[in-house]
């Protein structure tokens, strides 16, 4: 009797397991084919000189050594990190300020309009808005310079001077993406218990003191997530640079993504391009790990 029940239970378990694998199959097979396998192949390619005509050969760490010793690729690597640091800081800070500003009683119609205004740039392709901004940033016929000149100032070379080009791209990026972080932070702010805040108000703590002592620690997991998310996006920056500056002037704004595409598909140095992609992935993994460890320590605290 008991044996029969047990057999029935294990039959059920087996049926459930079988179904589990079947339900998972389409998604996992696609994931294997279009993510996992390509990642592995890219890693392998990064140790090779790839030439389908004349034959490929192993080159060990040569591609990586080239990437980390070549002046040009060094500049491109630092460009990308610099852009990431500025864009992430800008997006998180501006997004948080917007969220704090909108986290109060606002008439429904105004709230709708605010969400529209701040979130519209987020959902429109970077490729499209970059084209618009390229006309805004123009030297002579630029919209911004038109007003700069009207104010009696000398026109700014937004995209054509190596001093300002990177900052101009960062400004557009913050305009485009801050609304995304604003939405996430508003949702997080609404989860902070009212009683905690009220108690602090009773104690006479100022607004910013309350923010840094109570609110920010409370929503820190969301902030950590936002920083990781923003970093992963910023490290891949591509179309805004391609459209606004084509990587110039010189290499002043060239990013790793552009360099990967140029190396792989213009000069057909597949192995070298693969090594750059692997470096980018390692940076992403490193940032994620650091944030993960930091947030564990911080959140427990």
């Amino acid at each position, binding site marked *: 009797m008991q044996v029969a029940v047990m057999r029935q239970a294990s039959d059920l378990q087996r049926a459930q397991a079988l179904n*589990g694998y079947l339900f998972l199959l389409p*998604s996992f097979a696609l994931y294997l084919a279009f993510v996992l396998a390509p990642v592995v192949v890219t890693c392998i390619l990064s140790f090779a000189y790839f030439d389908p005509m004349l034959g490929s050969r192993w080159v060990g760490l040569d591609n990586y050594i080239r990437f980390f010793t070549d002046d040009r690729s060094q500049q491109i690597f630092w460009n990308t990190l610099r852009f990431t640091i500025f864009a992430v800081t800008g997006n998180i800070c501006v997004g948080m300020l917007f969220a704090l500003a909108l986290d109060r009683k606002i008439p429904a119609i*105004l709230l709708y309009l605010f969400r529209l205004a701040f979130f519209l740039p987020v959902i429109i392709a970077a490729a499209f808005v970059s*084209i618009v901004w390229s006309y805004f940033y123009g030297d002579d016929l630029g919209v911004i310079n038109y007003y700069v000149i009207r104010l009696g100032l000398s026109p700014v070379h937004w995209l054509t001077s190596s001093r300002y080009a990177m900052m101009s791209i960062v400004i557009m990026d913050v305009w485009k993406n801050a609304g995304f972080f604003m939405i996430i932070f508003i949702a997080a702010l609404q989860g902070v218990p009212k009683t905690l805040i009220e108690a602090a108000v009773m104690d006479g703590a100022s607004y910013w003191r309350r923010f840094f002592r109570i609110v920010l620690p409370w929503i820190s997991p969301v902030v950590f997530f936002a920083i990781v998310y923003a970093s992963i996006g910023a490290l891949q920056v591509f*179309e805004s640079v391609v459209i606004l500056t084509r990587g110039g002037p010189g290499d002043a704004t060239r990013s790793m993504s552009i360099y990967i595409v140029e190396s792989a598909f213009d000069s057909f140095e*597949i192995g070298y391009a693969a090594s750059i992609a692997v470096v980018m*992935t390692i940076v992403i993994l490193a940032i994620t790990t650091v944030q993960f460890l930091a947030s564990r320590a911080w959140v427990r605290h």
Partner: protein
Amino acid sequence: METKASQRWLDWAIIAVMAVIGFFMLLPFAWLFSMSFRTVKDAYQMPPSFFPPRLDFDNYRAVLNSSVPFLRIYANSVEVAVIVTIGQLVTCTLAAFAFARLNFPGRDTLFFVMLAGLLFPAQVTIIPIYLGFARIGLLNRPIGLALMYLTSSFGVFLVRQFMRSQPKALEEAALMDGAGYLKIFFRISLPQLRPALAALGIITFTQTWNYYFQARVLLEPQDSMTLPIAMDLLRGYLGSGNLALVMAAMSMSVLPVVLLFLLAQKMVIEGVAMTGIKN
């Protein structure tokens, strides 16, 4: 300590400042739209306009009649976005059901492996995909781009999280009654998932509509392009002076995403907020 009255005054001051900032946020779109109605010959005239000077669709017609196969490119974008959206809704929901509702050996490891997909940028997958597509004839075909994204770690994660927040009593009862898992999935789980599916569908459609890096690598001939990469090409093709035409093309290109957003703003925003919180 702040008094009630001064607090109210401060609230309105902040709202006013945000209104001004919001106005500036929208200026690039106002400019884009109004430019698309300027005549080609005064496209570059200053001062710039932020309101359409007139409402006739000459520039729009000119784009459609130009040497660039704009309608074909538009159709490619629709094809890719629709296939990817439907594909992800199907594959991600099935996988999420397995992860949230079924027990099987290795489940948590497999979930972790899939979640790792969030960390791999397209840059590290595109080279082998390019080489593979070149070999099997999928290069320069929009369907190739769509294939890349028929499932997503993000989608699986989103639906699984949502499903776990739902009670599973009904599903367990159906199982006791001897219903098969497929039947339970379609009859009981799927109807409960409507909010998550709407959010995922809208986010996926928008994201796919906007892909640039992948499209630029995989789709080279004009006929195979999607809108974001074609727009950069149009800038050169329609003549450098034809700013007004480019903006007309752009107005048409952003239309589906803007409409989707206007119709389903709440769902988009809740979907985004949901993913932020749940992480």
